[in-house]
């Protein structure tokens, strides 16, 4: 080996996990919603709201963290010569996996990162979400053992690899020319929440810097929460899992220090205590993440490396947020959405079908 990537070592992944946990806790201290210092699913949902893909008034904000994740990964990929534009591994399936991953996550109210952050903030409902996540990933590993795969990607033109990063640059540009005006629900083309979690956010520059830093480090370390549990189940390998646990531990200690830890099931921020719903929502999300090959955060970092298939999954998640709120599939602190259960059933039918259909003994 000619040069060594220190972040690909055990210590490296632990450092990155600790960094994300601390930064998330600090972002919450600086204004982000409760136990939502960072939530890839929630923040993509807020972005979907900011551009008007749904009209849930309390969750509309152009989250700079997401923009930073993609651009930070892009910068790291270019510096370390890992920007490799590629695509063509069943993109349309990945798009729908993204849609249902988002719907599942919004029934629980969080991505795997937020599940950890919720637990680190004392929200015991997260235990059911995490159990569901493990269950969904376990189902996914059964398909992987049967030979499930979505086929090979091909090298593509650089322009194709730049599509999602460019979209993020445009989103950032929109946020700069149409900044939030306190008390106003719209500026220019962007929607802004004037109440609810969408209104709560750290200063733009800090959110962006945090996103860039995490995007850079996560690209180097290949940090992935789904991969952490999948590798543990499939290979008994602890590499990514050590980063997963580091995130939980760092956020827990930071929350204690910042007085952000409140233990219990009741009245937790942006959460409900329907255990079966939490379990089932995250099961669907976990299965979709496994079939797509990464957690929502990992898909953003891969998009920054030029992976067009990951970009399609991200666009699927943003689309899924639109469906989730327009069709009343997403949960709220009051409980499940009107059609949340129906959406979960359809999601499971879809993802199990894809699991079986794409399982071949030979690649």
């Amino acid at each position, binding site marked *: 080996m000619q040069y060594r990537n220190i972040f690909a070592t055990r210590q490296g992944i632990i450092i990155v996990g600790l960094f994300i946990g601390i930064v998330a806790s600090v972002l919450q201290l600086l204004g982000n919603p409760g136990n939502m210092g960072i939530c890839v699913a929630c923040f993509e949902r807020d972005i979907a709201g900011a551009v008007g893909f749904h009209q849930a008034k309390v969750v509309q904000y152009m989250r700079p963290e997401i923009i930073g994740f993609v651009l930070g990964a892009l910068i790291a990929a270019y510096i370390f010569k890992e920007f490799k534009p590629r695509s063509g591994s069943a993109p349309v399936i990945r798009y729908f996996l993204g849609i249902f991953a988002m719907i599942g996550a919004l029934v629980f109210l969080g991505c795997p990162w937020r599940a950890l952050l919720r637990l680190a903030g004392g929200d015991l409902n997260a235990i059911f979400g995490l159990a569901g996540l493990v269950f969904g990933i376990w189902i996914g590993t059964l398909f992987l053992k049967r030979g499930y795969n979505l086929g090979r990607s091909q090298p593509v033109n650089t322009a194709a690899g730049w599509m999602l990063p460019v979209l993020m640059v445009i989103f950032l540009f929109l946020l700069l020319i149409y900044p939030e005006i306190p008390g106003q629900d719209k500026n220019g083309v962007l929607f802004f929440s004037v109440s609810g979690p969408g209104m709560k956010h750290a200063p733009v520059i800090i959110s962006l810097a945090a996103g860039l830093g995490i995007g850079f480090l996560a690209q180097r370390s290949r940090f992935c929460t789904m991969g952490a549990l999948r590798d543990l189940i*499939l290979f008994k390998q602890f590499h990514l899992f050590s980063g997963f646990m580091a995130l939980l531990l760092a956020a827990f200690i930071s929350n204690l220090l910042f007085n952000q830890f409140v233990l219990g099931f009741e009245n937790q921020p942006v959460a409900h205590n329907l255990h079966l719903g939490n379990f089932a929502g995250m099961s669907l999300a976990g299965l979709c993440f496994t079939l797509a*090959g990464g957690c929502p955060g990992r898909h953003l970092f891969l998009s920054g490396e030029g992976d067009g298939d990951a970009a399609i999954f991200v666009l699927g998640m943003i689309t899924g947020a639109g469906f989730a709120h327009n069709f009343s599939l997403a949960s709220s602190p009051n409980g499940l959405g009107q059609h949340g259960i129906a959406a979960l059933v359809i999601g499971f039918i879809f993802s199990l079908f894809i699991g079986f259909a794409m399982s071949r003994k030979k690649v």
Partner: protein
Amino acid sequence: MSVTIDARGLSCPQPVLLTLNEIRNGNDPQILVLVDTDTSKENVIRAAASQGCEVNVEPSVSGEYRIAIQKDK
């Protein structure tokens, strides 16, 4: 004898699955794995090393890697 696994273009965790399957179930003492991302390279090296194999990486053309794995007899 050696066997070649072409894991180029495959996403996580396929390259590792194929490699481990060959290490555990294959008959050839030498395995050559072709990958095209650094993530796959690191994952395959880590997996093979965890099985006690000797691993050598040769950079190949256009950002691809050839990973030579010598099984522990």
